[in-house]
C-alpha cells in the first residue's frame, strides 16, 4: 500500500493548484462582487463568466496542456489518468468562478468531430436526463431503430443542462430490444428541437431536447451500453472531484473566519458548537477524498469501479453540500450574501447531488450488491 501521489500526479496537481490560485481565485472576488450598489426589484439574475475572459482563460489552459484531459494523446487530448483528472477537477472546485477544463466524453474520439471538439470549436454536452435519476440505465427513454444507411431516433423531451452546446451525446434503446446505443447529435439536425430553456437555482439553465423521427448516419453511433456506464462513472468521478475542492475551500475559509471572528469576548474557534461542525466536516472531507481516489485508482487499474464511483459521488457531493451549509452558517449574515462564494457552492452542490444518480438510488444499488454478493 502506498497512498502517496506519484511524482507525475503531484506535478499535475501542483500545476492545477497554481493555475487556480493565480488565474481564478484572483478573479473570484471581482466576479462575485455586485456591480451596482442598489439592486433592481425582482430575482437576482443568473451569473456567468464574461465571454472574452472565458476565452482568455481557455487559451491559458491549453498552453499548460489542461485540455481534453481524458482523450488519448493521439486524438489530441491530454491522455491523463482518472486519478490525474480527479486531482485537476478537485483544484478547480475550490473556486466559485465557473470555469474548469471542458470535460470531453471519451466516445467523441470515435467521431469525425473529434478534431473540431479538441480545437474548442464545438462544445459537447451529455443529454443524460434519464440516467441522472438512477446513475444507471434503467430510465433510458429514447428509442432508436436501424434503417438503411443509419438510424432513426425518437425521444420525448429530456432535460439537458447545457442547452447551448453544439453536440449532444444521447443514450437510446433499440425499439423492441434491450440494446443501448450512444448517439452523437448535432444541434442543428432536422427532427431535433431544444426549447423551454429556463434558469435553474444554480447559475445555469436547463432546456428540453426532443427528437422526432430524427435520421442519423451510421457513424453517429459512438458507443454501447458499456460505454454509457463508463461515461456515467466518469461523470460521477468528475462531480466527486469538484466536490472535494468545494469542501476544502469551505473548510479552509471557515477555519480562518472562526479564528478571526470574536464574539462575546472569544473567537468562534473557541466554541465547541463551531469546532464540532468543522470536525465533522473534516471527517467527511477525508473519507470522501479516499473514496474518490480509490475509485479513480480502480478505474486506472482496469478494475471494476462503477460502484465505487457511484459511492464516491454520493458521499462527496453530499459532503460539499454540508460543507457549504456549514460555511454559510459560520459566516452568518455574510454567508448568504452573493459576494461570498458559499451560497454559490451551496446551490451548485445541491444540483450535483441530483445528477448522475440520486442518493436513494445509489444506496439501493449498493444494497443490492451487498445482499447478492
Amino acid at each position, binding site marked *: 500500500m502506498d497512498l502517496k501521489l506519484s511524482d507525475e500526479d503531484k506535478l499535475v496537481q501542483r500545476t492545477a493548484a497554481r493555475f487556480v490560485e493565480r488565474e481564478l481565485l484572483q478573479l473570484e472576488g471581482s466576479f462575485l462582487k*455586485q456591480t451596482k*450598489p*442598489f*439592486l*433592481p*426589484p*425582482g*430575482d*437576482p439574475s443568473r451569473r456567468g463568466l464574461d465571454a472574452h475572459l472565458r476565452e482568455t482563460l481557455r487559451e491559458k489552459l491549453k498552453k499548460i496542456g489542461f485540455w481534453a484531459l481524458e482523450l488519448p494523446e493521439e486524438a489530441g487530448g491530454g491522455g491523463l489518468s482518472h486519478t490525474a483528472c480527479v486531482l485537476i477537477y478537485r483544484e478547480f472546485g475550490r473556486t466559485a468562478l465557473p470555469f474548469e477544463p471542458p470535460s470531453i466524453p471519451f466516445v467523441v474520439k470515435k467521431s469525425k468531430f473529434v478534431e473540431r471538439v479538441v480545437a474548442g470549436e464545438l462544445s459537447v454536452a451529455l443529454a443524460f*436526463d434519464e440516467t*441522472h*435519476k438512477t446513475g444507471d440505465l434503467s430510465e433510458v427513454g429514447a428509442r432508436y431503430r436501424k434503417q438503411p444507411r443509419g438510424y432513426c431516433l425518437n425521444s420525448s423531451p429530456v*432535460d439537458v*443542462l447545457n442547452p447551448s452546446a453544439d453536440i449532444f451525446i444521447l443514450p437510446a434503446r433499440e425499439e423492441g430490444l434491450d440494446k443501448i446505443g450512444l448517439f452523437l447529435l448535432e444541434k442543428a439536425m432536422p427532427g431535433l428541437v431544444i426549447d423551454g430553456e*429556463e*434558469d*435553474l*437555482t*444554480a447559475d445555469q439553465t*436547463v432546456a428540453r431536447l426532443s427528437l422526432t423521427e430524427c435520421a442519423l448516419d451510421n457513424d453517429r453511433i459512438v458507443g454501447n451500453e458499456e460505454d454509457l456506464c463508463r461515461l456515467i462513472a466518469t461523470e460521477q468521478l468528475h462531480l466527486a472531484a469538484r466536490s472535494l475542492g468545494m469542501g476544502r475551500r469551505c473548510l479552509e475559509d471557515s477555519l480562518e473566519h472562526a479564528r478571526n*471572528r*470574536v*464574539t*462575546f*469576548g472569544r473567537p468562534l474557534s473557541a466554541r465547541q*458548537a*463551531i469546532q464540532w461542525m468543522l470536525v465533522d466536516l473534516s471527517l467527511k472531507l477525508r473519507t470522501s477524498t479516499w473514496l474518490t481516489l480509490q475509485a479513480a485508482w480502480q478505474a486506472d487499474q482496469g478494475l471494476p469501479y462503477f460502484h465505487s464511483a457511484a459511492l464516491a459521488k454520493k458521499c462527496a457531493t453530499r459532503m460539499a453540500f454540508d460543507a457549504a*451549509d456549514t460555511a*454559510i*452558517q459560520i459566516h*452568518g*449574515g455574510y*454567508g*448568504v*450574501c*452573493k*459576494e461570498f462564494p458559499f*451560497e454559490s457552492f*451551496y*446551490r451548485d452542490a*445541491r*444540483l450535483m*447531488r*441530483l*445528477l448522475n444518480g*440520486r*442518493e*436513494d438510488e445509489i444506496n439501493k444499488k449498493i444494497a443490492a450488491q451487498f445482499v447478492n454478493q
Partner: protein
Amino acid sequence: MDFRLSPEEESLRVKVERFVREELIALEPDFERAPDIFMGSRWKSRAKLSSDPEIKRYTDLMEGLEKKAEERGLWYLDVPKKHGGLEVSNVAMIAATEELEKTSVPLELGNHVSNILYACQGEQIERFLLPCIRGEKTACFGLTEPGAGSDPSMLTTTATPDGNSFVLNGSKMFPTFADVADFVQVFARLPGTQGHKGMTCFLVETGTPGYRVTRSIETIAGTEPCELVFENCRVPKEQVLGEVGKGWALNQSWLGSRRFLVGMRCHGEAKRALYFLRSLIKGGLAEFDKLSSTLGAFVGELEALRSLTYFSAWKADQGLDVRSEAASVKLFGTELLHKVVDFALEVAGPSAYRKVHQLARIFRHSRSTRIVEGTTQIQHHIIQRTLFREGTAYLELM
C-alpha cells in the same frame, strides 16, 4: 386541559379559512412564477417602486387582496386595541397563520410593525407607529454591524449627546429593505459605555442629514439586506425609542403577538413541500412505498412543531417568560424546514430545481431563515441558558 381554540379564536380561524378558500386559492397559478421578493413579509416596500409590468401585476394583485382582507376585518389583528386594532391573542395569530399558510399565495395579514415599535410614546405614535400600522410607512432595523454578530458588546455605533440631540456615528449591516424604508430603528451606544449598558434605540428618518444607505446586497433568498452609514447624524432626543440607555432591554423584549409566527410559517412551507410530493405520488410520478417512511417521519415532526408552536403561543398569552420557547420554535421550525425541503428536492429531482419552482423557492428561502433573526446557534444558546438556570422546572406542566 383543553386543546380547542376559544370561541373568538375559532371564529377568527374560520374567517381566515374562508378568505383563503374564496380569495387566495384561485390565485395560486398566478403566483407560481412570482419573484422571490413576494415571499416573506416585506415585499411591499421594494416591489412597489418597480416599473416592471410583471412586478406591477403582482403588486396590484397583492394590494387587491389586502383590501379584501381589510374589508373582512382581517387586517389589524395584532394591533393593540388602543391603536384601533383587534389585539388578538398569540394563539389566535397562530391559528390565523396556520390557515393562511395553506395556500402558496404569499399574503400576510396586517402591515409589518417591528416588534419594538409599540414602545413609541407621545408624538412618536402619530409620526412612526401609526403610519406603519396603516401601511403608509415602512421601517428597517439597524442593530448588527459590519464584522459583528449578535454580541451587544461589539456595538460600536456611538450616540454622543449634544444639547437636545444625539449625534450618531457608525455603520450597520443587514437591515432588510433599508433602501426603501421610511425610517430606521437604529441602536447606538452612549460614549464610554460597554456591553449592553448605554445602548439606545433611535428612530431616524430616511433623508436625515448624515444618514445614508450605501448599498443593498444580493443574497440567496431574495431578501436584500443593506449597509447603512451614520456620519455625524444629528437626531433630536424626541426620537429615542423607549428610554436612553435601555436599548438592550428594549431589543430583548418583544411587543405584539407575532413572535411565534416563524414556527407556523415553517410548518406551512414544509407542508406545501410535502403536498407537492403528494401530488407526484398521486400522479404516478413517485412511488408511495419508497417515500412513505421518510414522508411519515416528517409529517410527524411537523405535528410536533405545530404542538410546540401552539403551546408556546398559549404560554405567552398567560403572560409568562417565553424567551426559551420562542428560541425553541425558531430552532425547531427552521431546521425542520431545511430537512423537509432537502428531502422533497431529492425526490422531485432537477426539474424542481428550476428557479421558479416552488420547491426551489422554499430551498433558497429556508437557507436564510436559519441565520436571520438569530442563528440556530444563538437559539441553542438562549435555550441552554434557561435550561441551566431553571432546570426541568420550566418544562413542567402548569
